[in-house]
């Protein structure tokens, strides 16, 4: 316990330095700003804003990126409540009751409870990370290549199970991602694979290029296709941002349950905020004394999913910080950002760079506090932003994407590659193939190959090493079990229902 406090003290020392406070603030504001815009999710937001952090020291860069992430989450809820359009998928359920509340003139209370619920959830999740991360990282340090390989298999299987739509297509997308990730120079033999003699390709394809093409460009194009969306802004002025005492009493249970569900689901590979908010809403609808009001403006229907998605967003940092393995596309981007900063993600980060590790954790709490405080004075600005029509917004989004991609290597070639991935992303949307599993596969591809090779070398070419090592066997067993469970007809139906709202 004493360790925990001295660690957190170290972290807050870093996070509360004037510079880092400013970067955190900047990240939270930028993230909210972009997250408020309907049609851009957190992945595109982070990819877009990545170059802003290039010239910062690693701690500040990661603090800022984390701020952008939960800023984007929070911005999404604002849009969900005010215009009935989820700014990003994890606030899709918030639209149900949030918009009804806004219709009844209680937009202020809905926004307020979303912010406060998120803050409580964020505080709890920060503690969970601080307590759970060190022992997990210790376990992870004992992992050999076989265990790592199996862990990645489990992560990828879980990611496909939790993706919506066809399971087969999700697995195929993972495979495609793994393959694309292999493009570039093979570390063992030095052979430039799949580079077709193009020098830029021998370094591999940057993950920002893939993310920006498949999420950023493809999203803009599909949004334009759908024509002018119906955006109905209910209130030009939001009053009464502070919920009443009665609201607090009504919501305390919902916030607590949402926080717990979110914290658990966030850790799961492939989980994170989206799954957390859906499950929290479904559970609250069953448990709440007020369940008759759900769908008609129940404040619990806002509090529960908003708390859950924020808790989930934060605990999804646990696999990243302890194992160096991303559990969702946002975390894949964070890994990429760490690599750009010259940090190899993994359990050693905590021991080798305690300032970075604990500073980042402490800054999460600081960032959440900022979101609550900012919400009050800034809400008018966000509302203004929502009245800007999409035809004026998308050229700006496009521009930020282009500058972002170009400035990674100062290369126009990267911009053209992004166009290619934009085309691929567009057709994937048309063919109902989810891009998220591809991104995960893409980031894990080289790591998987590396660990597979090492494991096989250690076992002298005996593939049974993956099932004779106990930890590895358990991980693979869980992966297999997950696949069977999902393929069973009864559950398949449930899974389809669960994603219907999306």
């Amino acid at each position, binding site marked *: 316990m004493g360790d925990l406090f001295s660690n957190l003290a170290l972290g807050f020392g870093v996070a509360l330095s004037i510079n880092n406070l400013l970067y955190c603030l900047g990240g939270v504001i930028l993230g909210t700003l972009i997250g408020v815009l309907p049609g851009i999710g957190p992945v595109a937001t982070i990819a877009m804003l990545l*170059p*802003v952090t*290039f*010239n910062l020291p690693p701690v500040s860069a990661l603090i800022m990126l984390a701020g952008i992430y939960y800023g984007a989450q929070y911005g999404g809820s604002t849009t969900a409540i005010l215009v009935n359009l989820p700014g990003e998928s994890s606030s899709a359920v918030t639209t149900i009751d949030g918009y009804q509340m806004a219709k009844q003139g209680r937009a202020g209370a809905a926004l307020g409870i979303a912010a406060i619920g998120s803050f409580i959830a964020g505080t709890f999740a920060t503690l969970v990370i601080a307590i759970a991360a060190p022992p997990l990282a210790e376990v992870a340090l004992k992992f050999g290549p076989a265990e790592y390989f199996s862990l990645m298999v489990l992560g990828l299987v879980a990611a496909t199970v939790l993706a919506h739509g*066809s399971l*087969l*297509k999700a697995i*195929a997308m993972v*495979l*495609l991602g*793994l*393959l694309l990730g*292999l493009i570039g120079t*093979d570390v*063992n*033999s030095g*052979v430039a*694979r*799949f580079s077709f003699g193009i020098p830029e390709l021998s370094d591999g394809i940057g993950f920002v290029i893939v993310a920006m093409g498949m999420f950023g*460009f493809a999203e*803009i*194009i599909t949004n*334009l*296709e759908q*024509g*002018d969306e119906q955006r109905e802004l209910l209130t030009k002025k939001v009053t009464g941002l502070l919920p009443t005492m009665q609201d607090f009493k009504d919501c305390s249970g919902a916030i607590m349950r949402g926080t717990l569900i979110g914290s658990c689901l966030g850790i799961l590979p492939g989980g994170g905020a989206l799954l957390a908010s859906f499950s929290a809403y479904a559970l609250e609808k069953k448990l709440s004394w007020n369940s008759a009001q759900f769908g008609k403006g129940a404040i619990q229907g806002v509090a529960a999913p908003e708390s859950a998605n924020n808790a989930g967003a934060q605990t999804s940092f646990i696999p990243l910080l302890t194992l160096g393995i991303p559990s969702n596309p946002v975390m894949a981007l964070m890994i990429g950002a760490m690599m750009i900063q010259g940090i190899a993600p993994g359990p050693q980060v905590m021991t080798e760079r305690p300032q970075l590790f604990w500073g980042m954790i402490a800054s999460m709490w600081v960032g959440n506090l900022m979101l609550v405080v900012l919400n009050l004075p800034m809400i008018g600005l966000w509302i203004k932003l929502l009245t800007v029509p*999409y*035809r*004026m917004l*998308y*050229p*700006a989004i*496009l*521009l930020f994407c*282009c*500058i972002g991609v*170009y*400035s990674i290597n*100062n290369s*126009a*070639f990267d*911009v*053209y590659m*992004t*166009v290619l991935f*934009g*085309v691929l992303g*567009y057709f994937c949307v*048309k*063919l109902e*193939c989810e891009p998220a599993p591809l991104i995960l596969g893409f980031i894990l591809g080289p790591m*998987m*190959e590396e660990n*597979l*090779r090492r494991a*096989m*070398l250690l076992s*002298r*070419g*005996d593939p049974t090493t993956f099932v004779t090592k106990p930890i590895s066997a358990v991980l693979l067993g869980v992966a297999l079990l997950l696949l069977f469970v999902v393929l069973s007809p009864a559950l398949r139906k449930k899974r389809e229902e669960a994603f219907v709202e999306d």
Partner: protein
Amino acid sequence: MMSKIKNEKDFWAGLMFMAFGLAFILVARNYAMGSNVRMGPAYFPTALGGLQFVLGLVIFVRSFLSHVENGAIKKLHLRPLFVILFSVILFGVLLKPAGLVIAISVLIMVSAFGGNDFRFKEIVFVTIGLVVGSVAVFYHGLGLPFNLWPEFLGY
């Protein structure tokens, strides 16, 4: 004659995955396979490509068998696709030789044709605003190494 395609999306998705799988296997034939103990650069991609091909085949075959409600592909709107991507390519081509100001202006003006509601005056204002903003933030603020103006002007 083949039986009717019941799920157009899966039909094309299956073909796409098969093509990718095959392409990776074929290209990987140029590299050394290695052994189980010491895997060569071709080992993992060939294995993955094979799996990819088989999965694609399953998806492809199933598209003839199982009927779904909305299996048809929604209409492709090629205009936004081409206009947006073309404007991005122009940006890439222009940025170095013509400088940031021109590249941004072209990107915004051209991409504005991708929507179905083009308003000239409005887009001019948006362009001016974004050029000024980007120069301030990216060039002066973040110090990203762009040329502001065309190279031949000597800046």
